[in-house]
């Protein structure tokens, strides 16, 4: 059919076979894009900040921007099976009588009972035990399920002190003093009323069904000079047996790690902005804290500067997803990683199905009821997790059975570990802790600058040369 110049609509229709959304007469604003418009409309409707779960969703420089320089003519790889690659990891050697020995350098990050169901805590504990690694309690205290199922349990001491008590402290394998987390450095815990069930309320000494407001500072100390004394108190109470970790959301990492070491930490845990949460204000998640990539580098620099690398260990968290991420974190200088969100995804977070009586059941309707879809869901704060992970609802929590969850979590950890050792071998290492930053280059300028490794194909490290 001949194209008439006077008919612009016809022109477009004949030349453009795509849908209306790609119609070039529609111009979206980069500043006031659909997400921003929705944000403003929501604020106008509710008069309250938006609260959601998970971590920063926007793209930031991350481990994906680093690549390994595998074996070549100048560097020789190890064979896959006979040539062993050690993954044993020792944490807390500085002051504790009983340091933690892990079989793999991949731990499970602190997530609260309250944010998660009891079944999930048990599943994670079982998986960790099978893989020879640790789990961590969260902002709600220690559950019997977790202590029973997890062979190595790190007990958090948070600003809220919900459920914190000396009996659980004595039962723990390590103590983690939480100053902040990557999702919300400077903010306190949050749990909305729909998740404050009878059991959660009792553990946290809160009325059922209310929206929990938490402190952002510790009640009995402020600052590293007081932290010295607090760490000593916890050591005294536990007879100097257990390693003390100090966890911080990544902000002024170099200074904070230095101060944590001065204050007496055995292990420093640094959580980047990609770190998740079950509920906090959107403004915190996306706009406070620095990317994990930038944080690792600063943390390692601080430890090296103080000459305590090897004495004080570093655990890195915040968006660790794959074996490659683990390997890269170790290569940059971390002794171990902690995984939160990744573990939940392994259990079914954002999956379209859950397991019921050995079969997969569709959860799509429940996602839609929340106004979302699998792959996009961040509605942990609602307590209506379609796959029974971040919920206290007695019906929903049955969708994640400990046995099924444990198997999935364990498989995930095993895969990560296999990838880690494979990459280490490819770089010629018989011990994953021998990975070093010189094994990598960056494929973007930002990543090169943040990680302090050269831009691929050049000798250039922005900021250093």
């Amino acid at each position, binding site marked *: 059919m001949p194209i008439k110049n006077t008919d612009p609509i016809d022109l477009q229709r004949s030349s453009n076979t795509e849908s209306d959304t790609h119609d070039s007469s529609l111009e979206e604003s980069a500043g006031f894009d659909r997400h921003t418009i929705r944000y403003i409309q929501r604020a106008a409707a*509710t*008069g*309250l900040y938006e*609260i959601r779960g998970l971590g920063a969703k926007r793209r930031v420089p991350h481990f994906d921007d680093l690549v390994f320089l595998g074996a070549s003519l100048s560097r020789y790889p190890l064979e896959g099976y006979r040539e062993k690659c050690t993954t044993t990891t020792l944490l807390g050697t500085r002051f504790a009588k009983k340091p933690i020995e892990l079989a793999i350098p991949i731990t499970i990050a602190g997530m609260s009972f309250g944010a998660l169901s009891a079944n999930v805590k048990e599943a994670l504990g079982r998986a960790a035990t099978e893989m020879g690694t640790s789990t961590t309690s969260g902002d709600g205290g220690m559950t019997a399920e977790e202590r029973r199922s997890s062979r190595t349990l790190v007990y958090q001491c948070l600003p*809220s*002190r919900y459920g*914190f*008590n*000396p*009996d659980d*402290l*004595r039962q723990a394998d390590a103590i983690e003093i939480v100053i902040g987390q990557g999702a919300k450095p400077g903010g306190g815990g949050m749990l*909305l*009323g729909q998740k404050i069930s009878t059991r959660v309320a009792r553990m*946290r*000494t*809160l*009325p059922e069904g*209310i*929206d929990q*407001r938490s*402190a952002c500072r510790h*009640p*009995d*100390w402020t600052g590293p000079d*007081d932290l010295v*004394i*607090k760490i*000593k*108190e916890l050591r*005294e*109470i*536990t*007879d*100097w047996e257990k390693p003390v970790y100090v966890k911080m959301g990544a902000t002024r990492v170099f200074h904070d790690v230095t101060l944590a070491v001065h204050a007496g930490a055995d292990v420093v845990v640094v959580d980047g902005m990609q770190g998740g949460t079950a509920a906090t204000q959107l403004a915190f998640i996306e706009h406070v804290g620095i990317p994990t990539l930038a944080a690792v580098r600063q943390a390692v620099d601080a430890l090296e500067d103080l000459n305590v690398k090897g004495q004080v260990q570093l655990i890195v968290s915040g968006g660790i997803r794959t074996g490659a991420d683990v390997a890269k974190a170790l290569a940059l200088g971390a002794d171990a990683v902690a995984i939160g969100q990744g573990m939940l995804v392994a259990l079914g977070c954002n999956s379209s199905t859950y397991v019921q009586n050995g079969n997969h059941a569709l959860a799509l309707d429940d996602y839609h009821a929340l106004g979302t879809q699998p792959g996009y869901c961040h509605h942990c704060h609602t307590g209506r997790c379609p796959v029974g992970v971040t919920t206290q609802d007695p019906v929903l929590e049955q969708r994640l059975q400990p046995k099924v969850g444990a198997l999935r979590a364990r498989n995930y950890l095993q895969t990560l570990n296999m990838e880690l050792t494979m990459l280490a071998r490819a770089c010629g290492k018989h011990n994953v802790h021998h990975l070093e930053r010189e094994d990598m280059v960056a494929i973007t300028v930002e990543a090169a600058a943040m990680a302090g490794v050269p831009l691929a194909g050049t000798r250039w490290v922005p900021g250093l040369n």
Partner: protein
Amino acid sequence: MNRQGAVSAAVFDLKRTSVREINQFLHHPLGNVTHVTIENPDGAHNVAVGVNQPVNIEIRGHVGYYAAGMNKHASVQIHGNAGPGVAENMMSGRIDVKGFASASAGASAHGGLLIIRQDGGLRCGISLKGGDIVVGGNVGSFSAFMAQAGRLVVCGDAGEALGDSLYEAVIYVRGTIKSLGADARIEPMSDYDSAAVASLLGQAGISASARDFKRIASGRTLYHWNADANQEY
């Protein structure tokens, strides 16, 4: 140490024995030792922390931070002043500070009774989770901040922002209150309140009339995120 007789006492001098040794002693089965005296604390930190048995401990002097921290079952008398965080996270037992207490006294205490004969400092009873605190003198600003459960009885005055962000803990004040915190409000004293105050004063051995106290409790308006309520977070 007296090994003869059914009941025994132990005496430690912090000028010669370390805090660590004393705490280790207190953490192990005490046999027939029921009374422990600790002399010359001179502001030492972490004295008698994590005790987990019903022993009587007398500390003769001023202590530093976290004295009797996370106490369970023990009865501790401090014949002097206490630094920050005395009896923090106490689970049970009785701590009696004869002098004044510094900031965060009884922070996050779940149970037991903390008595402060003179003034309690700033943030007295912060994050309280079920313990009871009786103060013979005044308390400083931000006392009972985010206090969730338990009772704070103040025979003197209270500073600024009393009971800011209060949950279910109840505060009784005899003197003046400089200012109330967010969601804290003065409510009429019921018979139940009067009885509670009388009982706590009796346990502390402080003579005062329950009638003279005001009850401060949570208005419960911050319990749910509510845009219309003009709440301060």
